[in-house]
């Protein structure tokens, strides 16, 4: 069976990473891929979106071919060391010692390393036999600052660790992350100055420093275009036309702002951003998510050569 693929969804806090994760997940599963969404934030936002009480470390099936898990750092540490040591008595003794807990809490990069390791176990063909395998894993990643740190860990480890299984694991992760046929980072932004700046900064680090494959950026919650050009001129002529014109001017300003930011992102990344509209009703329905997801999958990955079905019969990509 072909090795599965990984999507890391990232962006500044509050841009809607979870919504995008869910949309991509629903669409990919709908297109036939066995898909797993991984929630990394402790706030349970992915669970909330699907109206599930709480996700845990066992895949919870949400729809046909679509499952979700949550990762808990404590659990990752325990899980990893029990696999590494294979002797339960030893493992428990070690993990229950206060010293070990204090160390694992603060040791640089341990949790990040284990998170990547965890992600890879879901997609690696027969890496850990006892696990279920998925065609596609979508990581609802941490905010971009933390994401940069996370994705830098394998490289950092390679600099620090000169030999042994840890180096081997770091090499393995590095080769997964930098392989454009298997991994892509999806940067999510809003049509806001700060979000765009942060997206461009993240883009620079991931692309130019870490050489990671990136999809075109997504701009979430874009204000829809409400008025034609001639109407915009007409509205501009009514200086003080009352609340209706006030609201229209606001809508026009919001849309122009969104378009301006889309241009900035395009200039900065060299790729045309994919736009997801603002849901004014305040409620995002599964059918909204599915619709956006299908469009995003098509828009994001055709240029990456992934097609709309991110795994399956394709065995080798050529470019």
């Amino acid at each position: 069976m072909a090795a599965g693929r990984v999507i890391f969804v990232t962006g500044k806090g509050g841009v809607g990473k979870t919504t995008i994760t869910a949309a991509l997940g629903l669409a990919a599963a709908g297109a036939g891929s066995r898909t797993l969404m991984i929630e990394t934030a402790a706030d349970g936002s992915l669970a909330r979106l699907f109206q599930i009480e709480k996700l845990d470390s066992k895949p919870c099936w949400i729809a046909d071919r679509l499952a979700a898990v949550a990762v808990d750092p404590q659990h990752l540490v325990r899980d990893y060391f029990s696999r590494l040591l294979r002797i339960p008595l030893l493992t428990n003794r070690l993990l229950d010692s206060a010293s070990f807990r204090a160390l694992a809490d603060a040791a640089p990069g341990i949790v990040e390393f284990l998170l990547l390791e965890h992600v890879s176990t879901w997609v690696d063909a027969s890496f850990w036999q006892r696990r279920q395998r998925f065609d596609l894993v979508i990581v609802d990643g941490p905010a971009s600052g933390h994401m940069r740190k996370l994705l830098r860990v394998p490289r950092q480890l390679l600099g620090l660790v000169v030999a042994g299984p840890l180096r081997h694991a770091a090499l393995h992760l590095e080769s997964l992350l930098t392989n454009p046929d298997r991994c892509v980072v999806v940067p999510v932004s809003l049509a806001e100055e700060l979000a765009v700046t942060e997206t461009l900064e993240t883009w620079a680090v991931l692309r130019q420093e870490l050489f990671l494959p990136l999809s075109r950026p997504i701009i979430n919650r874009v204000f829809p275009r409400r008025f034609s050009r001639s109407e915009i001129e007409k509205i501009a002529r009514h200086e003080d036309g009352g609340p209706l014109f006030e609201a229209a001017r606001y809508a026009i300003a919001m849309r122009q702002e969104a378009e301006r930011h889309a241009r900035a992102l395009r200039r900065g990344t060299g790729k045309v951003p994919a736009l997801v509209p603002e849901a004014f009703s305040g409620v995002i329905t599964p059918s909204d998510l599915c619709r956006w997801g299908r469009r995003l999958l098509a828009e994001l990955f055709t240029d990456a050569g992934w097609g709309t079905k991110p795994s399956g019969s394709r065995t080798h990509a050529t470019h």
Partner: protein
Amino acid sequence: MRAGGRNHQGLGPMQLTKDSSSLRSLHALLRSKQLIICVGCGGVGKTTTAAALAVSAALLGRKAAVLTVDPAQRLKTALGLDHLSHEPHRIVVNGSARWFDALALDTKRMFDELVERFAPGPDIAQRIFTNRLYRELSNELAGSAEYMAMEKLHDLVWGAAYDVLVVDTPPSAHIRDLLAAPNRLLTLLASRAVRLLQTPGVLVETAPSRTARYFFRVLLEALQRWSGLPLLKDLADFIGGFEPMLQRFADRAERTSRLLRAEHTAFLLVTTPEPPTLAVARELATELRAGGYPIAGIIANRVHCFTKQERLKPQTNDPFLRRLWNNYVVLAERSARDVQALWALAQHVDLPVLATVPMQPSPPTSIPALRAMARHLVNVPNRS
């Protein structure tokens, strides 16, 4: 039409707060408190709010400073600056008498400064500085940004002559990660893990039985093989280097922790009316209360402020007027939902909404724009 025209300028605290006392209370807060800490979910505008609060404080005639601990340097953008550093940058708001200082936390530099200040001798400081792990990771060691934020606070409150210090907090998942960071890191540095790393034999020698000793030996070998020896040794060296300074670090941590609960400190919960950020706000309020930290109230940011008025409905079937009306209705309904959601939050956490800042197409990126935002926070006169 005048009233309608004002509409988008903000509903102020209307609908959310019963009287003008809350308006006065943010005013009073800026006049009486020494330390104001903005907490909230990432992306709600904490940094901008903190900057606008500093502007307000300056306009009220206080010597104010705003500290950002956000590595993304949003404060720089909000203030319209090219450069913002570890050192105070003076910003004139209005004439020469109304100013505030802006600072950005530099985790690495703060760590270096502390090591330099507290190391018993230059050789020990040097030993830490040259440690490979310290060089690579003093920026990224879990909790070090949070820890250094608290240390900078300590310095600013005790060292510099400000009347009021406004701080925005890093986007930690949990506020306790921030507030407990000093203790957490110190606990690690003082823990048995350190001795263990330096002399791994300890674990083996103190094991209760011969079997246990055997197991521990196997385990240690496995661990060292796993990590590669130099990493473990570097880590031991790094942590060991801090040992002689631990007491002084601990004293500061203790003082900082008391400062956060002091009478002159106020936490402000910044939120937008979006459901996810409201959920975070609710959790933050609970966590802060449980920790005994004083929360003064809520600042609602990016609130849609259009009130629906049926009388404006066009009587003709003109398609342009229809479109204007439809757009207006969507925004008005959104505004009603925003207000409703904020009201529910205020009820749930039993805190007043101290200010409502209307949604703007673009956030403030200059001092005049921050002054406009400040007007929604406190009723400061626009003249000097």
